[in-house]
């Protein structure tokens, strides 16, 4: 930061020090000395989590190439050391994975859009014209969101009055539904990289940018949707649209808004953190990137040249406030705070709370039904496996009578604590999607390796522009070794069928069960039914530690 002309400060240290006091109040969480003349509020990757949840941050988050050992690829004790966080403190609980179950019992759940509303209202009380920006992955991720085709989230988010939004999983509602919602949105739907697939020119429904006049400053917000939507998600659901990073077009848009008098250029991005870092080094003239997609929560912005990159977590767990001093057409300094939404500390906004309950009411009985219990912490985040995915893979192996199970390496899905009941809502929170059919098919050992190599390269390619975000596909019934440092085709070895201990034979055929295929016409029961049946049979879930993946070169 010293090399930059920018003056910057982060409010993080304040709430880190609360550790010593072992007490948190809403006033402390919201404490912020209003700075400069423009305020941005960033929420992203809420994944339809209307209610408070637990969310364990990753233990394994490996950076490759130039990002090896750089944030956000720092976890646990290293993360706490980097930011001066004390073990066992509220910030340790919010930002790292260690002792999660016991800290969760002390500090309680996080998130809830009624609490987020309280925080937004408090910021607006300080700065009435603060700009609220939603980074997308909002209309996906719960039973009520699935059953209402995103309407529950639209209704609640509209009550928070965002100024603009960009997109990713929203498109898995299908382009017809997305178009219908977007046409009625009372705020800007942005994406400079959302193109018409047939004509390869900007899509008419999504504007590249929007201007806001705030605090006497002309602010341009440019949207950047998830670049790899048709690759990471089923292309056939939104065939009219094409995406891509399109950084040349981003540069054109930055130049265009600067030419129109923008004094502050903000990019509302769903690129993922490493892609944003690379883009910030290529595209000149962006002051602030509000980064989403990879679900990273960082207590301080990362500086690339004169661009600050802000990462605000996921699942409603955090809200970022960024105050900026813009003078003479230039961002002179910033003050930033990553505000953790401790649900027991922040009072819910009553209006939004009742609006949330209204959305859930028709489904209350279905949501609340207890299917079983868990003896173990259930979580998902991590590059290779999470206990939720182990449970899902077990369900696929037993319910679908398969040799090998595959579960997608998505980063959404809240956690459950040991002893917690597992409700139907909890199962949907980690499985809900519009292409959740649990397929059962045959694959050769060779093809299974091709899949693993392909997905591994989407995470561990040293060039961020060739990464899609997400984590490694989760595997049940099979172990393997992965060398992160090798090129595609050479990373995966020692594939072993766990039930026999035999090496996977490239020519032999195996029965594979999985879900979330991007192929059109995939058949099978919904994954949430498969998991529910499995948990019902188990009664109480107990998982042995997963040691089937050996990671080398991290």
């Amino acid at each position: 930061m010293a090399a930059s002309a920018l003056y910057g400060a982060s409010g993080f240290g304040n709430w880190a020090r609360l550790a010593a006091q072992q007490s948190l109040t809403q006033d402390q969480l919201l404490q912020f000395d209003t700075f400069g003349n423009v305020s941005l509020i960033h929420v992203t990757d809420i994944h339809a989590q209307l209610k408070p949840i637990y969310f364990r941050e990753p233990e394994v988050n490996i950076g490759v190439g130039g990002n090896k050992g750089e944030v956000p690829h720092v976890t646990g004790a290293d993360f706490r050391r980097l930011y001066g966080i004390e073990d066992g403190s509220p910030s340790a609980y919010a930002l790292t994975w260690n002792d999660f179950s016991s800290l969760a019992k002390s500090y309680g759940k996080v998130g809830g859009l009624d609490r987020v509303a309280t925080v937004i209202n408090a910021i607006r009380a300080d700065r009435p014209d603060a700009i609220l920006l939603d980074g997308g992955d909002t209309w996906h991720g719960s039973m009520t969101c699935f059953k209402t085709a995103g309407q529950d989230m639209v209704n609640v988010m509209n009550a928070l009055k965002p100024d603009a939004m960009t997109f990713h999983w929203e498109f898995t509602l299908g382009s017809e539904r997305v178009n219908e919602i977007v046409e009625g949105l009372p705020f800007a739907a942005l994406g400079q990289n959302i193109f018409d697939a047939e004509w390869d020119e900007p899509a008419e429904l999504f504007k590249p940018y929007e201007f806001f006049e705030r605090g006497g400053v002309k602010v341009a917000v440019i949207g950047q949707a998830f670049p790899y939507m048709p690759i990471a998600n089923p292309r056939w659901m939104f065939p009219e649209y094409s995406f891509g990073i399109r950084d040349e077009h981003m540069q054109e848009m930055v130049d265009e808004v600067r030419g129109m008098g923008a004094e502050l250029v903000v990019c509302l991005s769903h690129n993922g953190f490493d892609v944003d870092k690379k883009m910030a080094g290529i595209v000149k003239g962006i002051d602030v990137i509000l980064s989403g997609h990879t679900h990273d929560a960082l207590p301080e912005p990362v500086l690339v040249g004169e661009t600050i990159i802000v990462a605000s977590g996921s699942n409603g767990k955090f809200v970022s406030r960024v105050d900026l001093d813009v003078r003479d057409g230039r961002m002179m300094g910033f003050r930033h705070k990553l505000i953790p939404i401790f649900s027991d500390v922040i009072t819910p906004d009553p209006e939004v709370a009742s609006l949330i309950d209204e959305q859930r009411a028709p489904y209350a009985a279905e949501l609340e039904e207890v299917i079983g219990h868990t003896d173990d912490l259930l979580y998902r985040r991590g590059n290779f496996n999470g206990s939720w995915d182990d449970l899902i893979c077990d369900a696929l192996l037993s319910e679908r009578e398969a040799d090998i199970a595959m579960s997608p390496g998505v980063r959404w899905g809240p956690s459950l604590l040991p002893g917690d009941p597992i409700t139907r809502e909890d199962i949907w929170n980690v499985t809900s999607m519009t292409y959740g059919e649990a397929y059962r098919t045959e694959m050769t050992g060779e093809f299974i390796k091709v899949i693993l190599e392909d997905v591994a390269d989407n995470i561990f390619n040293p060039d961020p522009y060739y990464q899609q975000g997400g984590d490694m596909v989760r595997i049940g019934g099979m172990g393997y070794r992965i060398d992160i440092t090798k090129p595609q085709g050479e990373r995966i070895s020692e594939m072993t069928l766990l039930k026999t201990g035999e090496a996977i034979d490239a020519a032999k055929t195996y029965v594979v069960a999985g879900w979330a295929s991007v192929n059109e016409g995939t058949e099978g029961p919904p994954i949430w039914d498969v998991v529910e049946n499995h948990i019902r049979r188990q009664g109480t879930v107990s998982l042995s530690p997963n040691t089937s993946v050996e990671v080398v070169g991290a």
Partner: protein
Amino acid sequence: MNLTRRKTLALGGAAALAAMLPKGAAAATSEEWIAEFTGGADMADSGLELTAPEIAENGNTVPIEVSAPGASEILVLATGNPTPGVAKFTFGALAASQYASTRIRLAGTQDVVAIAKLADGTFAKASKTVKVTIGGCGG
């Protein structure tokens, strides 16, 4: 940008001058294509812009663009395809711009290469890796 391409075409606007390369040349390697096009001359790394996606949304129809101000010809090769030759664009003296776009089919992850014959008779080369992936698993 108020005038979209779709509208321009509806007005009866531009027409591209592109020749898909003959299949008879299937046996030729990328190196042979380049040698024939340049006669073995050196190729500069500026003067030609090749635009292609980092990761193809659909390997069967990958949009690419080439632009080389002043060029008389631009050759496009998909170096990893069984038949690397994709297209050769020829620009006449009256061409308003030396720009072309098309869609190409890629057999797998590979480098797409473009070579332009510039106004002064020298050559320029640009290359971009396009990844073709089976996809899945978004964050």
